[in-house]
């Protein structure tokens, strides 16, 4: 049964491998290209800026960086989309297509049990996804750093780094496999599966991950601008470079955590009143008001050091849901009509 | 294992109204009378017959058992089914056997009080209904 599951997926997997190789090559090429451009921009004399006396030169160098990175958004989209795409394709191939073409009637009247059929199918396809995406994820993670695309902990950096794509693809595969048992047609399963998969990923991205990420609360005395590490990303508002700033605002002096929304509103009102008052209209009135009402600015961020924690937690969420779906699949397959 | 040249090639006539096993038995008897089969000849194995014509192997088994019962063949375990020594006489005898049996029947019916006309009518009726069944 393992052999059959592999043989059925073989031609699709070969096509996927080709895609992975091509995309990987593109990532490598553009990554190196950008790495070179950035290193020139970050070292002397420019140091990531436009110091006087080197304006023309640094503008040219910066333009080179911009030029090298103009395909980044599209490329990142393509790479991330491969995750759910491969998951859907394999999921449809494994379940919906067998049901639609009635080959389940061939498979289930041989000697093995239906559960065995489902297990081999799942294991073979998941192993394939691991084999395809582990190398791609490693290359993409490297690329993110080389191209200075985004801090990896941030929303735009997280999906392209680490093993996010792998978790997503395995989850989508099992999801589409389960959907296929009910929808029983390849075309519809593809459509429904794709929509549901994107919805889930979106939900994880915007609603689950923020809650998973351990945050740090920091108070900012004044706005400061620091040049980031070799990543080229600036810190701001007291938030270190490479971190994911989740929120910022006003808090009472001495508080240890972000204030509630109600408190923020109250403070905001008080500040506005102060600005309108004579004190606020003085020179340096802003700071005076801050001191009068005992307000400080704060920032809530997830530091880069928590990256692997978040990867692990999100991976576990995906793995957990995947196992639940697989379990549901096992219970369903036994009672299914062929 | 039958030789390359089978001793008899069976044919099935689906429209004849005669059951397949009967057809096989009759074809063996005809072959015996015509001399195409002789004592010692081996009949094709059931498997061979099933390759020649589309027929249920059970039917072939039945036909072969009937031939044994009639004394026309002898099975030899492990080797196959062979035409028996006195088979030709048996098959040929059937023609004269039929005449003997008919005479016996007519005598019996006369003994029960049937007239010649009644006997004739009975035979006609019987033949007629068989003709109808055939058509």
């Amino acid at each position, binding site marked *: 049964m393992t052999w059959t599951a592999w043989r059925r997926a073989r031609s699709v997997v070969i096509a996927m491998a080709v895609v992975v190789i091509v995309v990987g090559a593109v990532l490598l090429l553009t990554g190196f290209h950008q790495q070179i451009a950035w290193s020139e921009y970050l070292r002397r004399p420019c140091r990531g800026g436009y110091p006087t006396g080197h304006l023309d030169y640094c503008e040219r160098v910066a333009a080179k960086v911009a030029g090298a990175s103009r395909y980044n958004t599209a490329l990142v989209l393509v790479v991330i989309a491969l995750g759910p795409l491969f998951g859907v394709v394999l999921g449809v191939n494994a379940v919906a297509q067998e049901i639609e073409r*009635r080959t389940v009637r061939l498979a289930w*009247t041989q*000697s093995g049990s239906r559960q065995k059929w489902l297990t081999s199918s799942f294991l073979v396809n998941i192993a394939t996804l691991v084999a395809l995406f582990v190398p791609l994820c490693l290359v993409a993670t490297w690329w993110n750093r080389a191209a200075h695309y985004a801090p990896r902990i941030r929303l735009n950096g997280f999906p392209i780094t680490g093993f996010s794509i792998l978790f997503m693809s395995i989850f989508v595969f099992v999801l589409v496999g389960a959907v296929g048992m009910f929808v029983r047609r390849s075309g519809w399963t593809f459509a429904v599966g794709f929509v549901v998969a994107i919805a889930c990923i979106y939900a994880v991205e915007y609603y689950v991950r923020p809650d998973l990420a351990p945050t740090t609360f920091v108070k900012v005395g004044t706005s400061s601008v620091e040049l980031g590490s070799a990543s080229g990303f600036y810190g701001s508002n007291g938030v270190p470079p490479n971190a994911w700033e989740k929120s910022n605002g006003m808090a009472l002096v001495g508080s240890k955590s972000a204030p509630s929304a109600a408190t923020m509103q109250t403070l905001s009102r008080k500040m506005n009143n102060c600005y309108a008052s004579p004190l606020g209209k003085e020179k340096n009135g802003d700071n005076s008001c801050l001191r009068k009402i005992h307000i400080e600015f704060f920032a809530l961020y997830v530091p880069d050091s928590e990256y692997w924690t978040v990867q692990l937690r999100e991976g576990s969420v995906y793995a957990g849901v995947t196992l639940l779906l697989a379990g549901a699949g096992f219970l369903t397959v036994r009672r299914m009509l062929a | 294992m039958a030789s390359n040249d089978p001793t008899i090639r069976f044919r099935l006539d689906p429209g004849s109204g005669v059951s397949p096993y009967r057809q096989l038995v009759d074809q063996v008897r005809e072959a015996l009378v015509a001399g195409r089969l002789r004592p010692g000849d081996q009949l094709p194995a059931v*498997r061979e017959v099933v390759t020649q014509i589309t027929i249920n192997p059970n039917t072939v088994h039945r036909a072969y058992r009937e031939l044994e019962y009639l004394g026309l063949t002898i099975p030899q375990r492990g080797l196959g089914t062979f035409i028996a020594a006195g088979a030709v006489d048996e098959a040929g005898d059937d023609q004269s056997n039929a005449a003997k049996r008919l005479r016996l029947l007519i005598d019996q019916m006369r003994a029960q009080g049937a007239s010649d006309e009644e006997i004739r009518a009975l035979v006609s009726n019987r033949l007629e209904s068989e003709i109808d069944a055939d058509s």
Partner: protein
Amino acid sequence: MTESPAVLEAVGLGRRYRRTWALSDCTLSIPQGRVVALVGPNGAGKSTLLRIAAGLTPPTTGSLSLFGTNALNPTPSLKSRVGFLDQERPLYSSFRVSEILHFGQSSNPSWNMTVAHEHLDRLNISLRSRVSKLSGGQQAQVALTVCLAKEPELLLLDEPAAALDPVAREDLLRLLMRQVADSGSSVVLSTHSLSDVAAICDYVVVLARSRVVLADDIEFVLESHRLISSLRGDAAVLPDGAISVDERNSARQTSALVRVELPLNEAGWKIEQPTLEEIVMAYLRAGIASPFEGDEVRFENWERP
């Protein structure tokens, strides 16, 4: 004659899809070693019965056992004794024939690759061909070979001869009979055209409108039914011992196909031997399971032999 358990035994088997009963109240006991013709119009329930027997569809009511073992939720060892060929003869279309055989071998504990190669060789089907490039008849042969090579004791074939040209059909039936000759397996094959398979079957099960209307050895069916007709125009009472299956009355003649329970008193009746097709037709027309019982049946899409 049957010391061994029936190869297929169904009691009150029924299957409902939403509100229609595809099969109802099906009770059968098929002895071992038979080649069974499962006959009936489209929609009569033949495929449903076969799929239930193969373990693909659970029944709504009733029970079914194969070789004396409960066959609902069949175990792997039971499944290895049963070969099933679906009406659509599904195969993995991108596979080569050799890969289909490899699939069969890896999915079944007992697999006779020699037999498989022999069959395909005799039919001139190359092991290297892709399934999608084979003709319909060749695909049917490959699918049947997969069933046969696992050397099952029972073969369940759903319309194996359908959509095949006469030559391909003969090849397929002979292939099947060779297997039966070699291994003594039982065969149940469904068909909507009895004449296609009449030459090889010795047991008949007739389904009409989801019910079993006749199930018996063909020889017994032939011996126990007669076509009787009377030249008297009035609605003649049937002779004692004759139970009407299907009657036709016209102004000048009464005729009926009857089941004979006692030797018939022939006075005033012409008695003839009906063919198997005539008997099956009569049962289908009448739709009665046994005399004095059952609903009126209208049959649609019945293809005359």
